[in-house]
């Protein structure tokens, strides 16, 4: 039983980061209509910024995280201003390929500088364990869960309560009508990418902290957030969160089950699990759990 709780907490921790990555994707998609495959690149960007600031400059970890978050938001806004802004009105496929290209660039830069070795992020968690109610869990998992929950709450409050959050929702529904109320589409786009950057950076830091370590492979982890997006429905923030958590738990439980009972499936079978879930799910509900039909078809 306690092992199951351990596994579920680990799965929720991983899943909450999938959820964040998916959330960033959904925010950009709803606000700008762009399917942003570079989201995983922003995750890498945040993690390597943090690594560089911590290890090259020797900044305290919290400060390094803060600056990495701001830096990644800046990179995201620059991508929007310099590249994506020119792609408005261009064919969807061309826009997708551009974001794919950006992903590859964002992967290659840190690989060229730091190589493919697993690096220690320099976080305070290390291998530390914490006991809750007799169950031993990784400290980094608890922190990850906490950060994930805090970010989700902040994103929710921003969109539900704030003036700009409301403006972004209105703009997603009818951009011209929002413009007629004085909402600048350019600011909405920039804000959406900045939010995606902030979320991605935090996910990047948490996903490479503690026992996990940092390498360019991180973008593969980010890629596994895609099934979460499909599962939840591409235009649904709630779907992104639920889909992310579901996939995280499924992946961790599968890893443990396969290792114990079905080793013949291979060591990395759990990495396929998100895609299996996605495929099975798409057959039943093509527009995701919470998605809008038109989006699923579009």
């Amino acid at each position: 039983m306690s092992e199951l709780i351990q596994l579920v907490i680990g799965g929720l921790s991983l899943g909450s980061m999938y959820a964040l990555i998916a959330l960033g994707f959904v925010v950009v998609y709803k606000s700008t209509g762009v399917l942003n495959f570079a989201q995983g690149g922003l995750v890498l960007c945040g993690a390597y910024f943090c690594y560089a600031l911590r290890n090259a400059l020797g900044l305290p970890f919290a400060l390094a995280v803060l600056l990495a978050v701001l830096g990644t938001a800046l990179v995201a806004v620059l991508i929007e201003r310099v590249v994506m802004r020119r792609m408005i009105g261009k064919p969807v496929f061309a826009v997708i390929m551009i974001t794919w290209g950006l992903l590859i660039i964002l992967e290659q830069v840190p690989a060229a500088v730091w190589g493919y070795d697993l690096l220690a992020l320099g976080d305070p968690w290390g291998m530390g364990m914490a006991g809750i109610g007799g169950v031993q869990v990784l400290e980094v998992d608890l922190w990850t869960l906490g950060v994930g929950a805090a970010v989700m709450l902040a994103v929710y409050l921003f969109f539900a309560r704030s003036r700009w959050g409301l403006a972004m929702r209105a703009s997603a529904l009818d951009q011209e009508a929002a413009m007629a109320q004085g909402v600048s589409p350019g600011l909405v786009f920039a804000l959406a990418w900045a939010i995606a950057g902030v979320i991605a950076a935090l996910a990047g830091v948490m996903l490479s902290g503690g026992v996990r370590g940092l390498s360019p492979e991180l973008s593969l982890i980010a890629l596994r957030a895609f099934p979460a997006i499909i599962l939840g429905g591409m235009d649904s923030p709630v779907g992104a969160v639920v889909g992310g958590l579901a996939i995280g738990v499924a992946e961790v439980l599968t890893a443990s089950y396969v290792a114990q009972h079905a080793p013949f499936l291979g060591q990395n079978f759990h990495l396929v699990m998100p895609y299996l879930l996605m495929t099975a799910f798409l057959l039943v509900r093509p527009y995701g759990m919470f998605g809008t039909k038109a989006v699923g078809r579009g």
Partner: protein
Amino acid sequence: MAAPHPQPLLVLDDVEAVYGGSILALRGISLNVPANGIVALLGANGAGKTTVLRSISGLLSWHRGRVSRGRIAYDGADIAGLGGAALVRRGIAQVMEGRRIFGELTIEENLRMGAFTRRDGAETRRTLDQVLEQFPILRERFAQPAGYLSGGQQQMLAIGRAMMARPRLLLLDEPSLGLAPIIVKQIREVIRHIAAGGVSVMLVEQNADMALSLADYGYILESGRIALEGPGPVLKENPMIRELYLGIVGAQEAEIASSGEGRR
């Protein structure tokens, strides 16, 4: 200033507008909106009525269009090239053709969007109270998605949303479009009330009867040019207008009158 007449709030001087660099939609429009009163802009489909409003409210850019010649002065200053936010803040609000309310947002949120550029909390709340007083149905269904409202109620919301900006100039694009005569009559009263409150109104309509019965002055647009202009009552008696616009409206007029009688 020793001007014989007070300065108009809005002046369009020889305005030409193009879409996509080549489609000429306005071919030199000159018109005035006085600081107080209702001006009607009439014309057939595609005459350029909406384009006139877009060139005033800054929405042309969204349609890849621009003012390619001429001058637009509001309150004495050139407003060409100002962004939507700056224009709304200066007091220009537009009710777009087809209402364009945010259907998935609540009525409250729609109204809050109308006040997007305002940062004066207490004053905004006072405006909200005024709007809700003028449109009781909006208060009744304050927390419901705006998409649940009927067409006429949505038009009221669209007008209420624009009033949340506390405009000095209200641009209305075919507010009677697709609405039953009785609702059209209500909207006519709403517009009269707004104008009486000191807001200048520029009313775009195909319902010439409704517009000319409200307007102090009217312009008839044809293929991007002003074909005719004059005081509302004079235009209403103009034989060409009677034939082109009011001929088809005649039947509606009777309908409005009869449904008006049935009202409690």
